[in-house]
């Protein structure tokens, strides 16, 4: 039989930190909870790759028995994050982040996470450690899980979510899920870009299917590019090991002509923009300017080296993060040898985090009854620029979304099973398998990914965005309908899975590019070369994307609860400096 029917009360889509914490929250309400992991349990998505840092205010950190900044407070933490976000933060969601972060850490400690160290506003542990603690707790409570399952589409009736269609990747069998509530916790869509820093499962399946089901997506133009990411050799392309080098020791960044290009910026902006996690925003922007000016390295980046600093000093500062010069399982010895020899390494920006996503209210519900969302896939609390931890976001969101979805499911009727809707979706999904001749998905996808990196990178212009949208339209209308897999067997058919993902990547890129085109200002990680100023008169707004035949973008005002910015318009770099200078000095790296 080509499909299997599975019933549950709450269906959690995504097995990262947000998904598992949501599953725990739902299960605590006594409802049947099933979590779907696209890959191996606790070892896919972004969470297990995280170093990881977890941010909360220093005072609360101290109350939990760790070293933290005593002069910090929830209020100061809140205000700083608003400055980091250029005042575009949803302050209602930010209050939730700031006030519940300590509770989420306390329970992680109870569930077995062992922190390595802490600083002013952050505690350090591993993403894998967090996953194992969450999985242990979820299993204890009776959360059911399935691995290597990709969710393809949500099923709705009269705007209410009633289930979803999934695929068992190993066998190729369809899974028809019937649920009272669905929580999307599927993370980002890194796979839409090449290079990228993400795991290969992160194709934004959840965000795209939410859009198709009628949910609103917000601020899709805000994409954080990590700076100083390794651009080679091939086996480490996309690794943030070199980003971490640059956090431990700023070293020296040079362009293809050997110029220390940061010298053109204000020294205090460079200092903050290098040593704090503002660097993802600032350095990615500065790097891209060099590349666009024709001073980029062969692979389209810049160079990181130790400059005049003696190797021993560089190594002493950096090696704390790399025991035996290994980053997770990557051997960095050749790269370190290059730095020792005074030969800088090629690095550059690569997509790392999505600041926008599914729009949720204070109860973590989307505009679709029964559809909740948590974590990176949402439009979260960070506004125009994330500096603080997404690991905190995933847990504060997961707990609340899970609890709400669980309560919702308690009161919801048994979902109706619309087999004809499932059948129609299954037929559409098998099209690339049935087509005898057609286009190779990998080649189409790589062209799309490389264009996305160029046109939707840290620096955007109207002309390039329009060109990109025309390109996406061409791919969606002339190439996507003609994809054909060379292999027709359904078990572990990599080409088939890639074909199913490509539609999601294209929709998300289109949504993002249209949003970037609409926002005619520069703020945080969205920089318009043709509108290089921050406009607090016209743009204290979130962009809102909906799909109704076609994708259209509107706006809505930012949710401000306590902190409003000064009105007026300012050149971007002046505004960036103002935000940095308005930031407190008690945050350490955050």
């Amino acid at each position, binding site marked *: 039989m080509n499909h299997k029917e599975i019933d549950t009360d709450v269906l959690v889509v995504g097995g990262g930190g947000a998904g598992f914490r949501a599953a725990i929250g739902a299960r605590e309400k006594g409802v049947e909870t099933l979590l779907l992991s696209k890959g191996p349990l606790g070892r896919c998505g972004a969470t297990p790759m995280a170093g990881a840092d977890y941010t909360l205010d220093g005072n609360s950190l101290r109350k939990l028995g760790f070293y933290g900044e005593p002069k910090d407070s929830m209020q100061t933490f809140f205000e700083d994050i608003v400055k980091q976000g250029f005042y575009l933060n949803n302050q209602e969601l930010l209050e939730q982040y700031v006030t519940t972060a300590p509770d989420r850490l306390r329970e992680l400690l109870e569930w077995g996470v062992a922190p390595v160290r802490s600083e002013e506003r952050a505690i350090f542990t591993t993403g894998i450690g967090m996953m194992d603690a969450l999985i242990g707790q979820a299993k204890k409570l009776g959360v059911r899980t399935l691995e290597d399952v990709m969710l393809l589409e949500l099923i709705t009736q009269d705007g209410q979510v009633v289930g979803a269609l999934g695929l068992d990747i190993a066998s190729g069998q369809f899974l028809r899920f019937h649920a009272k509530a669905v929580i999307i916790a599927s993370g980002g869509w890194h796979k839409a870009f090449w290079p990228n820093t993400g795991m290969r499962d992160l194709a934004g399946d959840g965000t795209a299917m939410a859009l198709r089901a009628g949910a609103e997506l917000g601020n899709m133009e805000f994409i954080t590019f990590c700076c100083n990411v390794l651009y080679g050799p*091939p086996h480490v392309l996309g690794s943030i090991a070199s980003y971490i080098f640059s956090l431990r020791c700023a070293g020296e960044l040079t362009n293809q002509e050997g110029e220390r290009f940061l010298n053109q910026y204000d020294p205090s902006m460079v200092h903050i923009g290098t040593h704090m996690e503002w660097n993802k925003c600032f350095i990615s922007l500065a790097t891209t300017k060099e590349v666009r000016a024709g001073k980029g390295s062969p692979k389209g980046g810049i160079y990181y080296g130790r400059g005049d600093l003696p190797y021993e000093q560089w190594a002493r500062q950096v090696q704390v993060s790399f025991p035996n010069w290994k980053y997770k399982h990557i051997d960095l010895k050749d790269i370190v040898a290059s730095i020792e020899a005074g030969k800088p390494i090629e690095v550059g920006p690569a997509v790392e985090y999505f600041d926008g996503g599914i729009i949720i209210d204070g109860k973590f519900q989307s505009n679709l009854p029964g559809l909740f969302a948590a974590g990176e896939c949402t439009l979260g609390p960070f506004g125009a620029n994330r500096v603080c931890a997404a690991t905190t976001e995933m847990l504060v969101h997961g707990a609340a979304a899970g609890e709400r979805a669980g309560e919702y499911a308690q009161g919801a009727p048994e979902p109706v099973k619309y087999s004809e809707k499932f059948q129609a979706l299954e037929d559409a999904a098998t099209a690339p398998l049935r087509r005898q001749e057609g286009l190779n998905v990998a080649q189409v996808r790589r062209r799309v990914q490389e264009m996305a990196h160029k046109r939707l990178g840290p620096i955007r212009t109207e002309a390039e965005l329009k060109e990109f949208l025309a390109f996406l339209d061409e791919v969606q209308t002339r190439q996507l309908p003609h994809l054909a897999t060379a292999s027709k*067997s359904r*078990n572990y058919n990599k080409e088939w899975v890639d074909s199913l993902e490509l539609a999601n990547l294209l929709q998300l890129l289109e949504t993002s590019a249209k949003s970037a085109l609409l926002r005619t200002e520069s703020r945080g990680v969205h920089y318009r070369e043709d509108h290089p100023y921050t406009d607090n008169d016209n743009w204290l707004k979130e962009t809102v994307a909906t799909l109704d035949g076609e994708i259209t973008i509107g706006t809505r005002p930012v949710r401000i609860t306590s902190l409003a910015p000064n009105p007026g318009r300012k050149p971007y770099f002046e505004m960036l400096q103002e935000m940095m200078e308005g930031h407190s000095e008690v945050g350490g790296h955050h």
Partner: protein
Amino acid sequence: MSQKEINVNIYRYDAAQDAEPRYDSYQVPWEPGMSAMDVLDYVYQNLDSTVAYYDHAGCALGICARCAGKINGKSGLLCQTLVDGDVVLEPAVKSRVIKDLVCARGGK
């Protein structure tokens, strides 16, 4: 300057329909620092899109450890084992192959 090419032999077997496994051979352009997974990515994208390896949720950075395989007979992670010459790529456990280099997980 001509590009160095390596010969890559890949174990092919579809548990759902093949009676016997076979090895298929490919010529792949080589550059320093290529891993076995980079080699597979090249084959999949440019030469033969029917090749299957654990990819749909891989990290390619040595963290998830799901790309275990045999590279020239020696067990290792495909994404972190560097290749610098002709190479034979085989599944980690032949008795558990679903397709090509993808094995079912044991002891679920």
